């Protein structure tokens, strides 16, 4: 090639390089109108929004099927039937009620997905906090504690419902997405305890009225005590009792006191009352209307479920007729002063002129705690999805009874145990009974009826086969839900099914 050719070629290549040189910037674009994960979590406001998103999961009632804890667990227990319009209305509830879930049918998909969504959001915040240098120590301490509490909360549900679950405490790198294996319940509990202990240390004792609903140190202690008690490990009873005593004692620093009137605990007007330790708030603020993504709203969908179908009458708004109360619970409470605050007597309402449709498994008795009240029916959004009725997950009477149980089991302070049991009974005008385990368990059923404790209480105390056996419960199987089949399929069998399910 002649020199001239070479010169020209060089010149052209140089010209072309001028354009090539801006290549990198030219292809690195940022979308507008949306925020990137990489650019978010810059300041306290954004971190707080991230923490709120973790809290958000606590109030989800529908993730791949309806999974509101209180009515769902009531249906699983001997307190309620599944109900609804017919057996195929909510097959997963009916299956749980009858303990004939399989890997496809049952509430497992929604519960698995809900709790891991919460864990994912929590893990993300914890990893982002590690990278952040702009947060004040006080802010950081508190939100780290809150997020750890929440992570423990979700794992506690997972371990109770599924037993062996993958224990993920970091944001998963891409190459690890499909490689997680299940941990034993013991390991999961160890992580829950660790998170809760760290949470307790970083949380405030009390929450200002504007922030009610955020987690306090009291709530974390109660949750930790509950977690310890659930492990049926005698070595952990003393610590549990100590934690509960801190909450339950008169003049506790958290301001907890039994409500003088039992029914007032569940009155939506008395949100965050003195007896409430862990409360999940709901509102109609989002004025929600999307049935396809109910979790996007802030309303409580449980009241809609348990309300009487097509009810016309005073006080209540109509619902869908789920969770009719079993005659077993009705009889247990019949002479109890707490009956009228716990159960709606449909027949009595009808006598008074009200009407409603009898639905599947109708008993004419309905759940009264957190029932849909006319006065709280939302006028914005879709009313069914916007019930502004909070639900209390842990309240003082519960921690009284848990402390009594821990004390009786460990045989350490029977006097205190008796006093706690007496206090719960005394509030509703019942006389003392001896603080035996049986009496405490019975008191738990009556005091906490339909509040979502009964099923796990039966399981953890070994009474489930006796009580629920006639309903289909099988030892060694029904303690846990099946692992969702999709989970086994997508991991190509790395995730293993629970015993007894196929």
């Amino acid at each position, binding site marked *: 090639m002649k020199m001239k050719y070479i010169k020209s070629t060089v010149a052209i290549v140089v010209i072309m390089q001028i354009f090539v040189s801006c290549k990198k910037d030219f*292809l690195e*674009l940022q979308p*507008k109108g949306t925020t990137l994960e990489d650019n978010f979590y810059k300041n306290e406001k954004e971190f707080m929004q991230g923490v709120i998103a973790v809290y*958000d999961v606590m109030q989800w009632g529908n993730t791949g099927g309806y999974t509101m804890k209180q009515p769902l667990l009531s249906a699983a227990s001997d307190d309620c039937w599944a109900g609804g319009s017919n057996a195929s209305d909510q097959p997963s509830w009916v299956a749980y009620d009858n303990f004939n879930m399989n890997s496809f049918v049952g509430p497992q998909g929604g519960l698995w997905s809900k709790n891991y969504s919460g864990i994912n959001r929590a893990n993300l915040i914890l990893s982002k906090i590690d990278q952040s240098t702009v947060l004040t120590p006080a802010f950081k301490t508190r939100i780290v504690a809150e997020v750890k509490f929440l992570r423990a909360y979700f794992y506690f549900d997972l371990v109770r419902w599924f037993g062996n679950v993958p224990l993920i405490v970091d944001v998963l790198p891409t190459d690890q997405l499909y490689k997680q294996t299940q941990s034993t319940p013991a390991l999961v509990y160890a992580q829950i305890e660790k998170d809760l202990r760290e949470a307790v240390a970083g949380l405030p004792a009390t929450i200002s009225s504007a922030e009610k*609903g955020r987690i306090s140190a009291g709530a974390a202690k109660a949750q930790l005590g509950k977690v310890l008690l659930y492990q049926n490990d005698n070595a952990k009873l003393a610590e549990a009792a100590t934690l509960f005593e801190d909450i339950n004692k008169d003049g506790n620093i958290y301001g907890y006191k039994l409500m003088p009137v039992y029914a007032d605990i569940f009155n939506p007007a008395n949100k965050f009352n003195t007896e409430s330790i862990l409360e999940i708030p709901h509102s109609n*603020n*989002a004025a929600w209307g999307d049935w396809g993504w109910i979790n996007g709203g802030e309303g409580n969908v449980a009241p809609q479920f348990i309300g009487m179908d097509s009810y016309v009458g005073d006080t209540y708004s109509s619902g869908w007729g789920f969770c009719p109360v079993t005659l077993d619970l009705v009889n247990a409470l019949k002479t109890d002063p707490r009956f009228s605050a716990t159960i709606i007597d449909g027949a009595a309402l009808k006598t008074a002129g009200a009407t409603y449709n009898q639905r599947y498994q109708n008993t004419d008795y309905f759940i009264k705690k957190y029932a849909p009240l006319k006065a709280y029916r939302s006028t914005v959004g879709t009313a069914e999805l916007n019930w502004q009725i909070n639900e209390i997950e842990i309240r003082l009477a519960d921690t009284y009874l848990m402390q009594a149980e821990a004390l009786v089991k460990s045989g350490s302070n029977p006097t205190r145990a008796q006093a706690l049991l007496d206090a719960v009974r005394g509030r509703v005008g019942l006389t003392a009974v001896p603080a035996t385990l049986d009496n405490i368990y019975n008191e738990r059923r009556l005091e906490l009826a339909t509040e979502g404790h009964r099923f796990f209480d039966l399981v953890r105390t070994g009474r489930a086969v006796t009580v629920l056996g006639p309903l289909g419960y099988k030892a060694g199987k029904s303690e846990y839900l099946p692992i969702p089949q999709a989970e086994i399929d997508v991991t190509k069998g790395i995730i293993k099914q629970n015993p007894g399910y196929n």
Partner: protein
Amino acid sequence: MKGRFTFILLLFSVIFSLRVSAQEIEATGKVTSNDGLPIPGVSVLIKDTKQGTATDQNGNFRIKIPKPGTQLVFTLIGMSSQTITVNNGQAITVVLLDSQNDLDQVVVVGYGTQKKSVVTGAISQVKASDLENMPVTRIEQSLQGRTSGLTITTSSGQPGDGATLRIRGTTSINNSEALYIVDGVQVGGGIDYLNQADIESIEVLKDAASAAIYGARAANGVIIVTTKKGTRTGKMSVNYNTYLGTQEPARKLDLLNATQFATIYNEAEYAKTPTLTTPRFPNPSQYGEGTDWQATVFNNSAKIQNHELSIAGGNEVSTYYSSFGYFDQDGIVATSNSKYKRFTARFNSEHKITKAIKFGQTIGYTRTNSVGVGTNTEYGSPLGRAINMDPITPLIETDPAKFNLPPYSNQPVVRNAQGLPYGISTIAQSEILNPVAALAVAQGKSWSDKIVGNVYVEAEILKGLKFRSQGGVDLAFWGGESFTPVHYLSSTFNALVNSYNRNANRGLFWSLENTVSYNKSISNHNFTALLGYSAQKNKGESQNGQLQGIPVENLRDASLRFSVPKENRDFGGGEYLNTLNSSFARLTYDYDEKYLFTGIIRRDGSSRFGSNNKFGYFPSASAGWVVTKEDFFPQNKYLTFLKIRGSYGVTGNDNIGDFRYISTVSGGRNYTLGTAAGLNIGVSPDALSNPDLRWEETSSTDIGLDATLFGNLSLTANWYKKKTSGMLLQIAVPGYVGNNGPIGNIADLENSGFELELGYGKTIGEFSFKVAANGSFVKNKIVYLGDDKEFLDGQRVGPPGLEVTRTKVGYAIGSFYGYRSDGLFQNQSEINGYVNEAGTPIQPNAKPGDIRFRDLNGNGLIDPNDREIIGDPTPDFTYGLTFNAAYKGFDMVVLGQGVTGNQIFNATRRFDLSTANYQTSILGRWTGEGTSNRIPRLTLEDTNENYNRVSSLFIEDGSYFRIKTLQVGYTLPNRLTQKAGISKIRFYLMANNLLTLTKYTGFDPEIGGGSIGIDRGFYPQARTYFAGINVGF
């Protein structure tokens, strides 16, 4: 003084001597085509010399020849060369015929051109001469029936609507739109903006070997359009083409009249309640014929007109081509709301700055104005309503006894010009309303302004070494407005407050491309090398606003300026942005045009690809062997040319959306806090990110041959197989991950096919004719959709959302999915006898006249698992036939086109609505044993779900053959027109869609657009009659 004289004398003698030497013979004449049209720009050379000239705009030439008996060679690309011996000075007429074997033609290959005889890829070409005088409303349609390897299905007959165009099958489950390159500029939104008369050629790059030069954008095939340039003849030519036409629907459906409708409805009611005493429509004959709703929405004389004026010319330094076009078409359905107007202007020019440097530009401007109606929807399109509306309700309520009652008396009902209300049905349900009243309240219009152009400099630095730099732009503005007045159409469809929407959008695409090419021949080794670099950016924005309750009553008066309360205002918008940065190289080599090779590599970097895959490489290689050039190949007159070629290449599809690899966060993950229940905003990531996200990739193999047989029969055959891999789907992640999986490159599909093109032409005296035929087989198959997926959801119909199509592994994309009908139960014993292996009755609740569904899984029940693939909306075979003939001044062309092997799902009737009208074929329903084995009994209680299950009952054969175009023209003899200074004047008559042969029972078997092959009341193509004139000056 003397000196001056001497000088003049000398000058004179020089001139004289020149005159003496010019005493050679002058040859004059004219070059025409076989239909007598003058051909400009034909090279006229004295044989074996470089002396010569070219014909002017009128085809005339004048050349001095040294002696009688000189041979002149007339050549023009695309025409067969002619050699004529000139004996004396008489004017001669030379007729140049289209080159039959096409081998001398030049095809555009992307960043260059190539002689067809040495092309090694699979490229189809449509030339200006094929398009001229053949009106189509959109350019894409002109490819239909003319080229192999393309499946073109009209999106609808609505003016301005496009066509669904697939090159060698549907290449992706996501975006399968071909890449359009006009004069080297990528254009978005199709090529409907082009004026047909401006087009020089359209090339379709079908295989990866030819398309790979466009790399990451080329997987769906490339369509290259080149617009006309001026000629260097020194004369200006002016052409004016116009046509006027009238359009009508080719077919109307036979629907039940009011009496039949009432009778049929009553029958269904009795079937449900045999004890019924009074049916809903007692004494059906009282309703008479009723209303013909189709007549209220169809227009049998919708007008269409087109005007094209072009001016072209140039000289050795500059050439220019300018044109203006105006096109106006009314729709045959709901004409008031279905119209399209297009104005186009073009200016192309090129200038030689020096001998080696050229500078030029092409600029096209297009403005469109249109209004449109729903074209294929069961939710209230004019035709859907006309088909389903009960014939009992009158178009206009003239009975005072009725229109003085509610709703007429107390609701804002829609009225005609005389103030009479349009009939409101008490029978029809849901979206089925009086179609004319509904059109009156659907007020809207759309507009667009688009400028596409390029500017380039080309320099030949050294012989064979060319540098070209081109800037291109596609700037489009488009928008629309709509107004819904206060109205009452039914208790469900009404508005108490009016609303007005307006949107405006802007899109800008620009590109900058530099190429350098070098070609060199060393003895018989011919090389061409091309190197290029390209950068492009595509961005745009949209904004829209809505006002409610403004104080006007129609669109004309509506304005966004009205002040309304804040809650009655709404404003929104968005934007998009992406960039592409590429370099590419091509090497073409041949040895004596016998052994051919082309290799291409392109490297594309795209803003759409994830950080781990910013750049992709797209290579291709192709080779050819011209067997007939071998010395050993015997000379014969049967096979004069044979080229065997093969190619393999990889291309990409970057139409994967912007920023899909990034994880974004969104709000709405809120929580309530505080005793006062305050809402707290929560934010979290929407899905996992996927930094590995990349283009969808298609690799394709092509084996083909080009041959010329018997001297004038040309044949091209291609076999291909192309595999698309990594099509985007959401990746399934385990639930424990706790968030949605990202979009990832997952799915695979395959297309394979065979194509054949044949051409034959002959001239017998003054009669000449040409026949061209093409046919294409294509088979599409989904190979893989991910470990977790066997199928993807497809189309659904009606409010019950019945699943009609599925994209299922092992089958063609979007195949029909449903139950198999096995005829009807004729009597109870057939029902009792329809049992499974265990002896269980399969349809115990069926009644005689119900469909016997096939229990495909043999479980003794008819349940959703008894569905399977029951049809495919995509044709297996498409074909086209063109016949041209000319005799003296007359010319004619017939274009026929058809498809076979596809099915149509007929969803024209709303079976979810008991009062929807029927086609008269329902009169052949089952009414007793032996009456029908296909059309089930009618009942209002369809417990067997005869009509509410997707089954083979609704599947029809979609094959058709259509005389797309029939045209007869006459050109006035030259001697008559020349005196008037007119070089050509031609009149023609033409019909489009004159005849369609099909078994399909709906309006039109060609159903494209968003729900291909599903007829929801499809807006059919018009049958059109045209009369036109072409004039050239």
